[in-house]
């Protein structure tokens, strides 16, 4: 390919990412399953990078899981989203940063629908006013939290104490990157790098010393599928999708998986436990699982945060082997402590020590 042509294509998949004065909206899934990741995101943004990130106490779920479970009419979800924007407006912010990929996709879809069907925007304005008395303006910039770390990946690297490098061999760790489907599959131009070659996690991994694993099912869904996981009778859909990915990545012997969606790391972590119990199969090295991380957790590790402060103890697949490989110190005795060193019970052992 002619270099100019390649650059022109790449330019289509660059996006403007706001770098300060950010309005943060939390994720239902990430708050429940990876609370330490959101804490770590805000700690890095405020304390390490010195940015203004605001959170409004009255914001709620975007309603995306309800929408994609087909429970909520489009008008309801549009109006809930409009209320989020109204809260942002009254706080004096213009740059929206969702923690969740489902939310990011939903905000993007709704703004696109309002653009192409202006009558839906007018209806939303009317319904929000009628329901709450509120008015709203559309954000100037919508960037997922992983976009923001992509933008600051070199600054994070410069302040890091560790790299994604095997301290015993000096070689880069082999990293699988998994992008949430709703990041760029619906609107490729809204994601860094588009849908086929999203660069948002690749950029972080490479600048933090790691090496990306390319494998056949790299773009396959983790299998959440909303109703396909939430209802027990449908759950075979979910585990089968994750299994397809594990089978595809295993020959490449990845050291770890990094994700930008809150749901994907939960499924890729928990389905490894389920598959080990169901089939007696594990996908990592030395009879262990493949550790799965959120991008916030990986950034926190690179910066030298205590692994238990960022929440790695909530993962089913253990992280100790990769911490040892990188050379990150940790105190095993404190893994399951509560606040202020309070001693708690420990999890029951699974059949396989992943």
């Amino acid at each position: 390919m002619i270099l100019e042509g390649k650059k022109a294509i790449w330019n289509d998949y660059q996006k403007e990412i706001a770098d300060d004065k950010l309005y943060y909206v939390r994720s239902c899934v990430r708050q429940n399953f990876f609370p330490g990741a959101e804490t770590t995101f805000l700690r890095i943004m405020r304390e390490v990078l010195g940015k203004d990130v605001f959170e409004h106490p009255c914001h709620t779920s975007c309603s995306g899981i309800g929408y994609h479970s087909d429970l909520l009419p489009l008008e309801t979800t549009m109006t809930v989203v409009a209320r989020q924007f109204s809260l942002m407006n009254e706080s004096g912010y213009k740059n929206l940063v969702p923690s969740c990929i489902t939310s990011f996709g939903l905000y993007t879809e709704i703004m696109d629908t309002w653009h192409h069907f202006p009558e839906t925007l007018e209806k939303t304005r009317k319904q929000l006013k009628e329901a709450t008395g509120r008015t709203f303006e559309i954000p100037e910039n919508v960037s997922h939290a992983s976009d923001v770390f992509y933008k600051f990946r070199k600054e994070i690297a410069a302040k890091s104490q560790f790299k994604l490098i095997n301290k015993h061999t000096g070689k880069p760790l082999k990293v699988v990157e998994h992008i949430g489907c709703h990041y760029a599959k619906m609107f490729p131009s809204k994601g860094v790098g588009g849908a086929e070659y999203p660069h948002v996690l690749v950029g972080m991994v490479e600048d933090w010393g790691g090496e990306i694993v390319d494998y056949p099912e790299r773009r396959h869904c983790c299998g959440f599928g909303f109703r396909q996981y939430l209802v027990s009778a449908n759950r075979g859909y979910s585990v089968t999708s994750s299994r397809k990915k594990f089978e595809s990545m295993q020959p490449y012997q990845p050291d770890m998986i990094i994700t930008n969606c809150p749901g994907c790391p939960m499924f890729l972590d928990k389905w490894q436990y389920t598959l080990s119990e169901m089939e007696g199969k594990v996908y990592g090295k030395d009879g262990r699982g493949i550790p799965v991380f959120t991008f916030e957790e990986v950034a926190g590790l690179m910066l030298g945060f205590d692994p238990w402060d960022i929440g790695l103890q909530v993962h089913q697949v253990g992280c100790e082997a990769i911490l040892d490989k990188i050379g990150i110190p940790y105190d095993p005795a404190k893994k399951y402590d509560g606040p202020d060193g309070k001693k708690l019970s420990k999890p029951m052992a699974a059949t396989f020590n992943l």
Partner: protein
Amino acid sequence: MDNLFEKLSKDVRMQEGLHACMNCGVCTAICPAAEIYNYDPRIICDTIQSRDNDEIEALLKSETIWYCGECMSCKTRCPRGNTVGLIIIALRSLSQELGYFAESEKGRQQLFLKRVIGHWMLEKGYCLYLEGIGTDLYPEQGPVWDWIQENYRDVFARLGANYQGDGTGILRKIPDEAMAEIQSIFKTTGAIDRFEQIEKVSTEKAKQMNLKLDDTMANEYIGHIYTQTEKNHNAL
């Protein structure tokens, strides 16, 4: 009888999702659901393009429309810019409006989803609620999740959360005035009407099926729709 194609066409998801489909089948090739279920998204487009009212009615009453996981992988691949995932959202919406969803066992699952996801969003402001997602309903969450649930106040406090607290933070209590706004939005925009429709049609179906259904989560009908698949839904 309603012209179902015309009804569907009023939905902006249909207008965005279906232009002229040439039936190339790329959506089916990429679709995770097509690999698992007896599901072919290409045929969804074909059926709707036929504008055959009886065929569309059968589709709205079918298991087929409930197989999609709304991952939207089809959007990326379609050479004509169609999105079967969006068409599916429009079909499921109309199926619930017309009460057809209870004609399929996958469609009947909407009552369970309404009573968890819908209830949590309306009452708590979150689509997921920590105390409702235990390993009794989600056993694959495993022993670490059991440990978190047993120690949730301490574990969440350790990780900087503000569980059910005032102000900002992870899993904070959404203030009453904010919840009042959400509830007003649900009423004004049709979500409450849809919830009532799901309850009403499900109650009639439970009677037909001779299964007990009450306001709790512990009854025969809820247990049945949450766990049972009597038909073979698997890919051929």
